[in-house]
């Protein structure tokens, strides 16, 4: 291994990146676009749920309950209808996600019969938003119910405390406000690394073949290992630069907390990049065509990273056989490390399982990658 030759190789690659506007776009624009798109577009919270109300009774009690829905930031009461069919039509057309029906004997039943139910028609198509909506609605109705009970207890001269035997105290850690942006954005760093790393490294060898410069390269004294390291080193630097850029945007623009150390982020990022760049490089060696290589590279890296890494869909809720598959998905370790570094402030010691897994992947892929390319024209 001759360091001078590696450096020369790296310089050549950097010049080529600079000369190719598309590569430059991938280096700078892609991370920006991706993080803005996902930062704003990939939100799972349900605020201002469009709500339609059919108050059959329209009494003081039912209005008091409705006021609570209007006051909640989770609901946006858009329509007050006087016909069940209009409520059905609004939910059918998707104009309202929640339809509240307060029965015509609401206050009378509260007063004497004891039990009464408010009906919540939810558009279950998007099951996630529906579940959140039901949860918030339960909370509003629950709070109303316990106030009504308190009043009733006071009237009947019963001890107040008996009305609320159990209170849940929540202490939320790491993502205290339970905002989905804090959950999604750290993972987008992994997506950017994958896109940038796989797309660019998959071109390295294929480009030499397509442009006919491979023969010239083979004629030089540079060895196969030096070619690989020289070619991938610039992308490693770019990757680290992009990771820092994304982190700056996440913290500065999207106000995601970053509680860990930059050093920890760099350690896992470099390991992850080794895996991604190694895969891209091997694909480039195998396919010898730029288009084919970039397509395969995206297929092999992007799909598992978006779906099986825990980026948005929690791994522990997947069926067991698919959970087993996720252990093979290298991005899983990086994504979970990113979330822990950002939100929990975990350090290298806390992250040893993720780091160990990434290290194993990096060395295995690295080993295969060095053997993938041989200096011959066949």
């Amino acid at each position: 291994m001759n360091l001078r030759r590696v450096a020369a190789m790296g310089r050549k690659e950097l010049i080529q990146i600079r000369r190719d506007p598309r590569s430059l776009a991938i280096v700078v624009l892609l991370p920006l676009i991706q993080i803005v798109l996902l930062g704003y577009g990939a939100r799972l919270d349900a605020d201002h749920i469009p709500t339609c109300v059919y108050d059959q009774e329209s009494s003081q009690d039912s209005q008091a309950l409705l006021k609570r829905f209007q006051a909640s930031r989770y609901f946006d009461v858009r329509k007050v209808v006087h016909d069940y069919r209009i409520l059905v039509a609004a939910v059918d057309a998707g104009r309202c996600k929640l339809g509240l029906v307060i029965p015509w004997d609401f206050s009378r039943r509260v007063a004497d019969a004891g039990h009464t139910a408010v009906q919540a028609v939810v558009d279950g198509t998007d099951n996630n938003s529906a579940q959140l909506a039901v949860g918030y609605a339960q909370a509003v109705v629950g709070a109303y119910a316990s106030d009504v009970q308190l009043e009733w207890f006071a009237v009947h001269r019963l001890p107040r405390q008996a009305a609320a035997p159990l209170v849940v105290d929540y202490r939320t850690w790491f993502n205290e406000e339970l905002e989905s942006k804090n959950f999604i954005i750290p993972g987008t760093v992994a997506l950017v690394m994958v896109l940038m790393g796989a797309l660019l490294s998959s071109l390295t060898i294929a480009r030499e073949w397509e442009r006919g410069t491979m023969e010239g390269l083979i004629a030089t004294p540079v060895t196969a290992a030096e070619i690989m390291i020289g070619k991938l080193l610039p992308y490693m630097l770019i990757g680290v630069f992009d990771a820092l850029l994304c982190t700056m945007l996440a913290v500065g623009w999207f106000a995601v907390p970053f509680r860990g150390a930059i050093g920890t982020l760099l350690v896992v990022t470099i390991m992850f990049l080794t895996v991604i760049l190694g895969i891209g490089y091997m694909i480039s060696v195998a396919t010898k065509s730029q288009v084919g290589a970039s397509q395969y590279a995206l297929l092999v890296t992007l799909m598992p990273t978006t779906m099986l890494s825990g980026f948005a869909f929690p791994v522990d809720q997947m069926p067991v056989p698919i959970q087993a598959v996720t252990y093979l998905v290298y991005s899983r370790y990086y994504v979970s490390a990113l979330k822990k570094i950002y939100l929990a402030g975990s350090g290298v010691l806390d992250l040893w399982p993720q780091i160990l897994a990434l290290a194993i992947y990096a060395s295995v892929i690295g080993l295969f990658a060095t053997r993938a390319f041989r200096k011959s024209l066949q």
Partner: protein
Amino acid sequence: MFGRIWCMVVKEFIQLRRDRYVRVRLIVPPLVQMLVFGYAATFEVKHLPIAVLDLDHSQASRDLLSRFTFTGRFRIAAVLSNERELKALIGHSTIPMALTIEPGFAALVRKGRTAHLQAIVDGTNSNTALIAVGYINQIAAQFSQDYARARIERLAPPVAAQVPQISLQQRPWYNPGMSSPWFFVPGLIGTITMMLVVNLTAFGIVREREIGTLEQVLVTPIRPVELMLGKTIPFFLVGLADVALITSVGTLWFRVPFRGNPLVLLLGTVLFLLCTLSVGLLISTLCSTQQQAFASGFFFLNPAFILSGFSFPISSMPRAMQLLTYLGPLRYFLVIVRGTFLKGVGLRVLWPQMLALAGLTAILLTVSVLRFRKSLD
């Protein structure tokens, strides 16, 4: 004229069959996406592992904890014995939630005082945490009501039956089990066909230009319109076949109901395919190499996918982002697909989406056809 178009179509199909990357692209991503979105993509919360620290060891505390496992939403994955274990657990394991019951819990409940249940939640996955909090609230409310009632029965038996209780009765329409595959699988019809059709169309034409065979085709008696039709009809058919395939796997394998009129879906599909074909055609006129076509395709598909409402609800996005979503064809098509599959609604409800899709298609088609003819000169 039809003879010439037919020859072109046959030629395209032969090329499709011969191209290795195309073969991979036709088969692997749709299959993997079906499997992954059918099985792995879930926002449901079931059997969520929780840790419990019961310092009271009473009948009441055990009753409360057993209610958690009884719902099937939670599963007790760790039984702790002190506070230290709990601190070491949350954030350092896969257990995202811990419940603590302080000593004296049962005594408080018995005396009619307010007892506390402490829930420590790892908020990293805000979505799972929010849904879980919703379930915990329900369980706690039910427990409260049961014990309050028992208390009143002891204090003032005659009025016990009159304690006012108000509950929320949930009626999830269209997807009563609130299952994730029912949400994702129909949507796949849109995402998979969009990816395939845009890429195939753009590549098919750029490839001919790049390897120089477009020139050969142009010296034949074929006219530009015939060339364009011959180029796009095969991809239109591939798209239709894809829709049929995903629809059958979705309904037969994943048991997603189809409640609407297939003709409405067909109409929407035709409009959507025309729209995606125009996008592919447009990209092909902007690029001279396959590499460029690939990059342009990606720069269109990536935002089109994220901003479509396929997995992230549009209503949760900031206003400016919501306005951007109106530009993507997938947004409208997803409403049509989910409307026909799950809601069983027809044109009376879906006409705005159809109209928007038709308008978008008309604009894109005109621009791309004009540009395509020009790019041949």
